[in-house]
């Protein structure tokens, strides 16, 4: 192997491991150090990262149909009262269970701009938002879902014998029979509860961190180990969930934030100049109709839109 190829092999090894769940701060430090050593390392790593992200399309374009064939046995949903559900889920969620059921799961994915409802065998439903990847494992003793990326709305049938647990990054959300959404962007996880209650825990902290019980109207944003609980009024809740109708709803939202939302649903990118990013806007927009939004910015806000390849740059 030439020198360049050795560097490339080394970079690929870092990149492959980086995507693994056991990637630690020590590993990250080793990678940072390696990247700092030489620009040759840095550009090679970036090139692989760029090309590999294009291979991601493989997962993203797949219909939200099961990828794996291992189907858990079907059985009718059982309904039980609230108190029993809480007690049972407290008792049953242990890390052993978590591992024991990792093998027979199904994978569901949506492409950018696509939204789809997925029925689960227990009668529950997941509604996947744009560019979302979810794994689900349901069997007789547990119901577990891993939100790998994106956003999903859950409408869960209560079943005390089988707690419903959603893993999103470091967060573990135990469902106590309810409707809620989880949005994940790498380490940052947002949970909004519309009905019923869920319990939120940092999965990697074990018993050390106190769990948060969230009820209807609560929203939690967790980022880098910090967790913030906020209450949402009915209007704000409706806004948060307008994606389920394919709409984005803004109220006093900065243009920068609105653009970030649009970019989740479209292959074309909106890029807002620093000067324009603070402009506040309101209204409802079709998530995949970026053109209409851009037209509004041009006509209503006197902003200029310049297209450059896949990017639309907005500026004064």
């Amino acid at each position, binding site marked *: *192997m*030439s*020198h*360049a*190829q*050795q*560097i*490339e*092999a*080394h970079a*690929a*090894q*870092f*990149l*492959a*491991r980086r*995507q*693994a*769940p*056991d990637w630690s701060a020590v*590993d990250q430090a*080793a*990678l940072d150090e*390696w990247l700092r050593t*030489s*620009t*040759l390392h*840095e*550009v*090679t790593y*970036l*090139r*692989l990262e*760029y*090309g*590999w992200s*294009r*291979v*991601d*399309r*493989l*997962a993203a*374009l*797949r219909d939200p149909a099961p*990828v*794996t064939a291992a189907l858990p046995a079907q059985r009718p949903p059982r309904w039980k009262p609230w108190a029993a559900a809480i007690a049972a889920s407290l008792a049953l969620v242990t890390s052993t269970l978590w591992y024991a059921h*990792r*093998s027979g799961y199904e*994978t569901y994915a949506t*492409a*950018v701009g696509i939204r789809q409802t997925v029925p689960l065998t227990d009668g529950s439903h997941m509604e996947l938002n744009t560019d979302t*990847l979810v*794994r689900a494992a349901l069997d007789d003793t547990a119901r577990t879902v891993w939100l*790998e990326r994106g956003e999903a709305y859950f409408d869960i049938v209560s079943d005390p014998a089988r707690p419903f647990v959603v893993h999103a990054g470091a967060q573990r959300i135990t469902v106590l029979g309810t409707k809620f959404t989880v949005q994940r962007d790498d380490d940052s996880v947002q949970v909004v509860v519309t009905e019923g209650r869920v319990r939120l825990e940092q999965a990697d902290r074990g018993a050390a961190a106190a769990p948060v019980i969230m009820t209807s109207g609560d929203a939690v944003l967790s980022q880098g180990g910090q967790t913030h609980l906020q209450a949402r009024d009915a209007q704000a809740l409706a806004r948060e969930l307008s994606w389920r109708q394919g709409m984005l709803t803004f109220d006093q939202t900065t243009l920068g934030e609105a653009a970030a939302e649009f970019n989740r649903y479209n*292959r074309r990118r909106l890029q807002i100049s620093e000067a324009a990013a603070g402009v506040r806007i309101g209204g409802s927009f079709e998530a995949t109709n970026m053109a209409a939004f851009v037209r509004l910015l041009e006509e209503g806000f006197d902003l200029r839109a310049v297209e450059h*390849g*896949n*990017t639309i740059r907005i500026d004064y």
Partner: protein
Amino acid sequence: MTDAEALKSWFFREVLPLEPALTRFLRRNWRNREDLVDLRQEIYARVYDAARKRLPVQTRPFLFTSARNHLINCARRAQVVPIEHFVQLESLNIAVDNATPDRYASAREELRRVQSGLERLPPRCREVVMLRKIEGLSQREAAARMGVSEDTVERQMVQGMRALVDFMLGGSGRIRRGPKKRSGKEEHRP
């Protein structure tokens, strides 16, 4: 100084999409195909270091001028390069490569490209990539599913990743293996 994030995003957005054109340029202007990967990597490092100070206004001419200058330097150092080749390089008109338009593939074309890249991989390598990339299995899970060691999965993954990225960026998508006698242990592991 360019902000680190801006630099990275410039490299993703403007430099790497030019790789097919850059590779064609190198093939045309450098005789020894085996140097290609080294040359490309050095040229990338060169433009990246220059862009740290200031992002170029026009990336394409900047990249190809840097490429030409780098080839000239290499030709000067390598004394075996025939003199007429050197002259050709000096007088090289880099505008020629502007003929290829930058074009963004549609999602469907891109998926087809990934699929044909996958088909070129050896079966076991392909399976590892599919298990990890499509089904989202961890290295350990993929190893268990296939009944092989985690080391094997990682080795196949690294090879598949390099070949697929190469293919996505306009290359042949073939797996590059080192000389047979070299064992994996000699390579540095992160």
